[in-house]
């Protein structure tokens, strides 16, 4: 699909490759990553450490840690190509049209400024508001994200809030300039489970209300399952499977997704054993030939060892596998 032609597509990432140069040559951290996010859509990225899910988010917001860089491919945002923007243009875009939420709220908060000052400065930088109007909105935002006594708490510093409250403030900061897209990287991983659910519900409700798209990066399939519309499962720097949450989670076609789902201990059942995927994901410098999953895959054939599978699929789900599990036959209506 072409984002220049289709106004419903907000973000269009095409065949993205991220490389990290080393003394021994360039390591390919991400390769051939293609996906789209529609306006108002929540797309989840899930995978294990080193699979490339965070890197994908960082590439989109132009915050790759040097020397990692986009070596190939294109990132289109709202019909504009953004992977080649200079640092200043990218910074302006990032505050105004793309918001970011990270795992540690203290990364996003300035410890020396009150939360009110931070909200006001962010809004004044990006929106045509007077200081008084921005101040009023700052209190409104704190109220909206569930901070008790917002008119008083607007004067408080980040350290005067609990971890859960800080992450609520970060959500307010990311959304107050009314961006079209929020990149949320493990936004609730540092929070206790009872607080995590509240913060996710808040993020989802606010984005839904404003039609904001979300790129949600997490290692937690439950978080994806309850919050995302579609999900991309990453393995060794590539998308193994991408599609709407229900088919990918409940009827996975890629053997890795299938193994991953079976290895998660269920909260509502008591299986005798968990499905094991033996071995571990290969390191960046030791990616196997062909399909990177083949050494751990029960269905691996000679073709898998030699040839890289390309994303394919005739429905909403795309799967990069030579021997995918077959989708169930749909009964005639």
């Amino acid at each position, binding site marked *: 699909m072409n984002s220049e032609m289709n106004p419903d597509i907000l973000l269009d990432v095409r065949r993205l490759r991220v490389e990290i140069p080393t003394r021994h040559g360039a390591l390919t951290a991400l390769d051939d990553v293609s996906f789209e996010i529609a306006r108002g859509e929540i797309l989840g990225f899930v995978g*294990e*450490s080193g699979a490339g899910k965070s890197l994908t988010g960082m590439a989109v917001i132009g915050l790759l840690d040097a020397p990692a860089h986009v070596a190939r491919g294109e990132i289109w945002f709202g019909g504009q190509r953004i992977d080649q923007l200079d640092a200043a243009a990218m910074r302006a875009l990032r505050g105004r049209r793309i918001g970011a939420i990270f795992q540690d709220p203290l990364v996003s908060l300035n410890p020396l400024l009150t939360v009110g000052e931070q909200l006001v400065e962010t809004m004044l930088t990006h929106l045509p508001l007077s200081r008084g109007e921005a101040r009023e909105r700052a209190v409104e935002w704190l109220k909206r994200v*569930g901070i008790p006594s917002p008119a008083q708490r607007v004067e408080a510093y980040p350290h005067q809030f*609990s971890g*859960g*409250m800080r992450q609520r403030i970060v959500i307010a900061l990311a959304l107050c300039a009314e961006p079209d897209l929020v990149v949320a990287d493990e936004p609730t991983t540092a929070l*206790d*489970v*009872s*607080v*995590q*659910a*509240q913060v*996710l*519900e808040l993020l989802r409700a606010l984005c839904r209300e404003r039609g904001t798209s979300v790129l949600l990066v997490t*290692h*937690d*399939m*439950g*978080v994806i*399952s*309850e*919050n995302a519309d579609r999900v991309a499962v990453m393995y060794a720097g590539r998308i193994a499977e991408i599609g709407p949450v*229900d088919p990918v*989670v*409940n009827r996975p076609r890629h053997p890795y997704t299938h*193994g*991953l*789902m*079976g*290895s*998660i*201990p*269920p*909260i*509502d059942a*008591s*299986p005798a*054993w*968990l*499905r*094991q*995927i*033996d071995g*571990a*994901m290969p390191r960046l410098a030791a990616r196997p030939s062909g399909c990177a999953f083949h050494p751990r895959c029960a269905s691996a054939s000679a073709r898998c060892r030699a040839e890289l599978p390309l994303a394919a699929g005739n429905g909403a789900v795309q799967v990069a596998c030579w021997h995918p599990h077959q989708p169930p036959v749909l009964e005639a209506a």
Partner: protein
Amino acid sequence: MNAHNYLAVEDLSRHFQAHGRTVRSVDGVSFAIPAGSTFSLVGESGCGKTTLARVIAGLDRARTGALRFTRPAGAIGARVDELLGRVGLAAADGAKFPHEFSGGQRQRIAIALAGEPSFLVCDEPTSALDVSVQAQILNLLKRLEQEEGLTSLFISHNLAVVRFVSTRIGVMYLGRLVEVADTEALFAAPRHPYTQLLLAAIPRVGQGRRAAGVPAGELPSPLAPPPGCAFHPRCPAAAEICRREAPRLSTLRDEAAVACHAVGGAAQPVRFMPRAA
């Protein structure tokens, strides 16, 4: 004390002094672990589960209360390659250095190094691991229990992990046990409102959007715990007595024990929190 209990913990407390106040990190906790079973402690940050694990593992001796171990007779030391084999590593791996192993393999070695593993204390043993590697370790722990009669104390914040490995579970909140029950009983009919909240809050895989709303409120600071029942500010069933008096852990008919004024008198399990999908 029950002769089949490997470990009995009786009225155990561990208090710390901080900012001129006494923090009751572990406060009057009692439970027993039958030999050959896995007892898990679950709870969120600051509930005292790690402090309790350190006391039981003998890493922290400043405590009040009693720990009674009954060691089974006839435990024999095993050779290195036997131990490695038992945790799924090859004998040849004995010649390697720790950095040559992955995180999951290192965790297996730690399990093997627990030596004659008749009792194992695991504090969040898989929280740093990816789920595919976590599954390998959890299966291993379960196999050691079933095949070698290993007794374990397992500490985790993750209720799903705990459900898979445990025989019996203790739920902690701010230094106290609020509910103790056999695993299946706890998940079939959680009694304490906090247990119900924890169960409702866990994101479900593959069940679509969250059906139940998320209960509000956060964990209070252990430096200034609420009076009475520490959970009362978040509890939908809180009554006058809950604000004044901390409920005692009392045993119900089916061997489950609950510390809640509202549950004590009820003839059958009560739903305080919305049930998840």
